[in-house]
């Protein structure tokens, strides 16, 4: 089993508060996952669960407190993380297309910047051709961006442009941080389809970060559910979403509103504690909201348990013979 990108025991601790009362918040805790070539892995979870922080660490924008990142089996050191060779292979798409581009610089500038910086060509005409080819993949052309400022383009256009820009240098991994949450529904599907198409055609791997389980279910191969910095369930998307094992995943499943007038939107959802409190919780972070919580959950951090193909981090599966839980 080949792994193109692997993350091992990634931890990021932020220290928050004033000078006198500092508290440490573990935004990402012991997160390990990998992605295979030509695969779409979804990182899902509610806002503030550490999805974006994980993405930023992978891209080298944030330094991890501990943990390693391997690219094609090779350890990516902190220094190399910032280098171009890594960026050449791992590209990013951000959530807000309006903020992805410098408002003072024309959009074509960043395209040329990418082409020249990664040494694709030195020739301007050739560069235009490369750019135009990639823009056509997302249904645009060079004419659409030539000399245009970001303020002159629509959000949907900008997001497609942003994806085309990331694909310019043919990366092997695309980290897409909520790429469709700011675009309208019709475009959402075409972007998600584009990811699937690229996966099948050129073998692109996508780390698809989202809180939208519907598109995740539709497009991804595997899914990792994050909660307060931990991956609490990870496995094939079919298995995880149709047969959720972790109580939190069940809760997430139930929170998806369905277009069925007969079915009321679930009433069982407990309003979240303050994020902060949950982050500081000992043991299982979800214990405060979990309908099945037992005494052990507040004391001990659950281990990563494999149930068939699925990894679950819950005391319920500590010992499959344990009758207490049933």
């Amino acid at each position: 089993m080949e792994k193109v990108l692997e993350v091992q025991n990634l931890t990021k601790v932020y220290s928050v508060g004033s000078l006198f009362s500092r508290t440490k918040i573990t935004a990402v805790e012991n997160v390990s996952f990998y992605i295979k070539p030509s695969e779409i892995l979804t990182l899902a979870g509610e806002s503030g669960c550490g999805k974006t922080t994980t993405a930023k660490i992978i891209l080298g924008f944030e330094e991890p407190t501990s943990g390693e990142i391997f690219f094609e089996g090779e350890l990516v050191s902190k220094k190399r993380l910032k280098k171009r060779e890594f960026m050449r292979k791992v590209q990013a798409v951000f959530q807000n297309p309006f903020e992805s581009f410098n408002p003072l610089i024309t959009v074509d500038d960043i395209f040329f910047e990418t082409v020249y910086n990664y040494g694709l060509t030195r020739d301007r005409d050739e560069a235009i051709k490369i750019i135009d080819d990639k823009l056509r993949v997302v249904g645009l052309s060079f004419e659409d961006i030539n000399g245009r400022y970001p303020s002159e383009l629509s959000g949907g256009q900008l997001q497609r442009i942003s994806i085309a820009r990331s694909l310019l240098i043919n990366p092997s991994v695309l980290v897409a941080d909520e790429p469709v949450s700011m675009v309208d529904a019709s475009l959402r599907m075409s972007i998600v389809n584009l990811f699937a198409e690229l996966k099948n055609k050129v073998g692109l791997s996508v780390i698809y970060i989202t809180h939208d389980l519907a598109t995740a279910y539709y497009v991804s191969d595997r899914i990792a559910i994050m909660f307060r910095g931990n991956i609490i369930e990870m496995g094939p998307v079919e298995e995880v979403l149709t047969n959720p094992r972790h109580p939190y995943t069940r809760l997430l499943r139930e929170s998806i509103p369905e277009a069925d007038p007969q079915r009321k939107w679930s009433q069982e959802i407990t309003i979240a504690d303050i994020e902060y409190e949950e982050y500081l919780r000992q043991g299982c972070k979800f214990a405060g909201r979990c309908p099945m919580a037992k005494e052990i959950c507040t004391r001990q951090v659950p281990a990563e348990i494999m149930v068939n193909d699925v990894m679950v981090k819950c005391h319920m599966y500590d010992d499959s013979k344990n009758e207490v839980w049933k």
Partner: protein
Amino acid sequence: MSFVKRYLIPRLVQYILVTFFGLTAVFLFPRFLPVDPIEQQLSQYQTFGVYVSPEQQEEMMNTLKQLYGLEGTLWEQFMVFWKRLFTGNFGPSLSRFPTPVNQVIRNSLPWTIGLLSTTTILSWIIAVLAGGIVGYYRKRWMEALDILVMIIRPVPYYVMALILLILFAYVFPIFPLSGGVGIARGLTLSWQTILSIIKHAILPALTLLIVGISWQFQSMKLIVQIVRSEDHVWYSRTAGVDDRKLVFNHVIRNAMLPMITQLGLQFGSIFSGTLITEMVFAYPGVGWILYDAVMKADYNLIMGIMCISVIAVTTSIFLLDLIYPFFDPRVRYR
């Protein structure tokens, strides 16, 4: 053409209106004051023990009214005020009678403009660059600079000016104590005069620079710290843009926009001088004569300086409006 119609004309109209109302306020406010400058002047003569016959008094009053532009009804006075403004004649200064106000201002304005435009521009450039670089890189030794600025900034300006004056003019007499140019040196165009002017300007300029740099440095640093973690900076980094280009083209350039507005506003206030600097260093600028005029109730001179200051502020805002689209493409001439 659409530039003229949709961008220039609305702003020009706005500029003219604001200037008009500003100048009207300058005209009106002194007239609402409970002091009558003419009676004040006359009573001054009386306290000197000069005997003035009623006819002479009447005559004096009329002359003074004419000098002050206080003849007739308020409306007539308003007309006279505008006439004076357009002909650029504010009448004679009363504390320096019969020197015309124009000449008094003309004598001191170059000093103020020379000193303040240099320090304003220089401190802006230094603050933007230093604040930008410190805010972006946040290296250890840079934090030291930050702390230094944090200590300097709350020091009251006059205290710092006096400390510098005592240090560099008295303890180590490197620079002259006061004035704009050496005593008994006529303002002829020679190397020595220029050297003397520069030497006299260094201390006041230094104090203005320190103050100007420190607060602008802090605001620039704060803006940069926000801009540096904006998505487009990360995104440019994934495009392989190198660090130096990132700092100047992406971070400083974006963070500079509020600073440009700020510079434009500062430029307008150059024309009213800096009172404290000019007092501490006895620098012959506009601030100094304004202070003098207020103390001596020199009505015409106050009016003259106020009008220039109003026009300067509105004009610089207007010019700022015109050049701003060059810096920010979101504000387009459409």
